[in-house]
């Protein structure tokens, strides 16, 4: 599989690439389970419906033989390593199948002392892209059905894993729709930007899928669930919805790894990753900081320095 063969520009990634990645994942997963390197592993199994996959917690080599990697493997599985899922995985070292974008979350969680590198066995995927929400789940991934985050992926050659499945995919030359959308919104007058978000937040039903699927929303007590005192209205109304999404964006600033799971799972199609990207841009400009590339104990917003810029205080 050379770079040219997997070139995605304008055409598609061949299903054979995903099959080869699947084979590599299975072989590696079976081996580490047999050898007892890991107590369990989080990967993907096929779903009942055509072109679907779902996360799975695997503990035996037999189950590992059924693992897959396909364009339907959209989930960021690192959410299963956090406190919110405590007790689900067997104790011991855990294997995890991770795309490059998911590995940013792993790095972030290590930096925040939520997981330890030595407790993980990372089977990384040199990912050729996954399906976008609501996209046609055909055999092949094309520019028409690929997820928006994949259009401008910078981490599809993952580094620092214990094993990498697949190699040398090329996703260059795709149209960065999300960056274009963000630029469009940033260029709007303030009133129109406000109207844009107001319309989107009005559809929010507060199902909290955005929170529950986020690897960084691991707090055992969420501010938004408290009603005495109530900091954020919990009823799905414009004021509380807006407050919730601002709280979410602010808590993720400097932490969000950009997996865009919040946006993918939103049943109301709220473009939440635009908020995440805006925060990331802010961090880049102000502190020259990018979250999740390598485990970092402290980010710009979680430390105090004497020489911090204080010009914003008026």
């Amino acid at each position, binding site marked *: 599989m050379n770079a040219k063969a997997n070139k995605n520009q304008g055409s598609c990634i061949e299903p054979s690439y995903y099959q080869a990645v699947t084979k590599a994942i299975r072989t590696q997963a079976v081996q580490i389970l047999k050898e007892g390197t890991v107590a369990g592993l989080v990967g993907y199994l096929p*779903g*009942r*419906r*055509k072109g*679907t*996959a*779902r*996360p*799975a*917690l695997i503990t035996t080599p037999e189950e590992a033989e059924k693992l897959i990697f396909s364009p339907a493997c959209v*989930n960021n599985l690192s*959410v*299963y390593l956090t406190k*919110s*899922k405590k*007790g*689900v995985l067997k104790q011991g070292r855990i294997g995890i199948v991770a795309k490059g974008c998911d590995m940013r979350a792993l790095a972030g969680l290590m930096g925040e002392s939520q997981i330890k590198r030595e407790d993980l066995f990372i089977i990384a995927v040199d990912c050729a892209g996954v399906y976008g929400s609501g996209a046609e789940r055909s055999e092949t991934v094309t520019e028409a059905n690929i997820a928006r985050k994949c259009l401008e992926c910078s981490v599809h050659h993952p580094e620092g894993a214990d094993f990498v499945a697949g190699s040398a995919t090329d996703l260059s030359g795709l149209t960065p729709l999300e960056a274009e959308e963000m630029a469009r919104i940033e260029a709007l007058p303030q009133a129109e930007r406000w109207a844009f978000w107001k*319309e*989107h937040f009005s*559809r929010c*039903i*507060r*199902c*909290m*899928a955005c*929170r*529950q*699927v986020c690897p960084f929303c691991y707090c055992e007590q969420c501010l938004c*669930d408290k*009603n005495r005192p*109530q900091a954020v*209205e*919990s*009823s*799905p*109304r414009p004021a*509380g919805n807006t407050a919730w999404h601002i709280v979410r964006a602010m808590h993720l600033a400097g932490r969000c790894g950009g997996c865009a*799971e919040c946006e*993918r*799972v939103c*049943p*109301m*199609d709220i473009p939440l990753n635009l908020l995440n990207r805006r925060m990331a841009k802010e961090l880049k400009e102000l502190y020259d900081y990018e979250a999740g590339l390598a485990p970092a104990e402290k980010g710009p917003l979680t430390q105090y320095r004497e020489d911090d810029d204080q010009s914003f205080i008026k």
Partner: protein
Amino acid sequence: MPQIITEENLRNLIDLLVKESKVVVGPKETGSVVLYQPLTAGSDLRLDSLPRRSAKELFFPICENILTYQRQDGKMQVTDVDRSHFPETVLIGAPPCDAASPAILDAVFSWDYNDEFYLERRRKSTIVGIACTKGDDACFCTAVGLARDTEAGSDLFLTPLKDGSYGCKAVTEKGKALVDAHAALFGEAASVDAALFVEQGTEKLDLAKIKNWLEGHFEDPLWEKIADICVGCGSCAFICPACHCFDINDEGSTEQGSRRKHWDACGFSKFTNHASGHNPRDVQNKRYRNRIMHKFKYYDDKFGKTLCTGCGRCVRACPVGIDIAEILSTINAKQD
């Protein structure tokens, strides 16, 4: 002679009803999604896609005030919501998986307590259902006992015909009244030729057998197997036509505010959290088990109805691919 209404007259009917100051709700494009929304004109109606949220919100809104309070001169004034102002509403374009749900929910909202917020809206509503002409591999209405042409729950039922018009059948007095009041828009046809339906691939389930298995398997490893991957969000419950749990919150300041009733979901970790701190459904497995038990056992025990219409919304929306049709099929195949 069968009655019909042309596509044009169906849209004219909406225009007329709007002129009569009735609230007409139907599938409408809203941002990037189709939702049941008030239609301002017949041209707003979209019949080519299942709305993202179900039609239950017409009767059981996402959030509503049930009272307001205000403190004046040290005295608290509490004001009830005037339900007589709820508008006469016509719901147009609900497929059987949505049209059937209010009739299922009537039982629970008029059981040990009459929920007048829900019931008053039901009294003032007319449901125009429409036979479904397409399904996808998430749909499973036929598996839970409904069909593409189930009239149950509809007051007036439309069947798309091959020539683009709709066959009409008044199922209830409300439906007949709607047709009689606008008789000029309805015509008669010598014969009707219904549009074809793409059959779903899902098998027919034995709901009695499934219920029987659930009765004997409150503690079963299956629950852990399924729910281990559940992330505990409320998307399945919120977009479900039949889920009806709600929470009540007082929101506002000490001076003024509202008591609000809004959607809640059994998947949330705090759903059954007691004031003592004890939580009988302390892990996701128990919460997911409750979801299945409620739909296919408890509701049937109490009201003789299944709390699922097979619309497939939860299957499509689950962030982690939990597939209720697959789970039911697994249980259906079990021998003990």
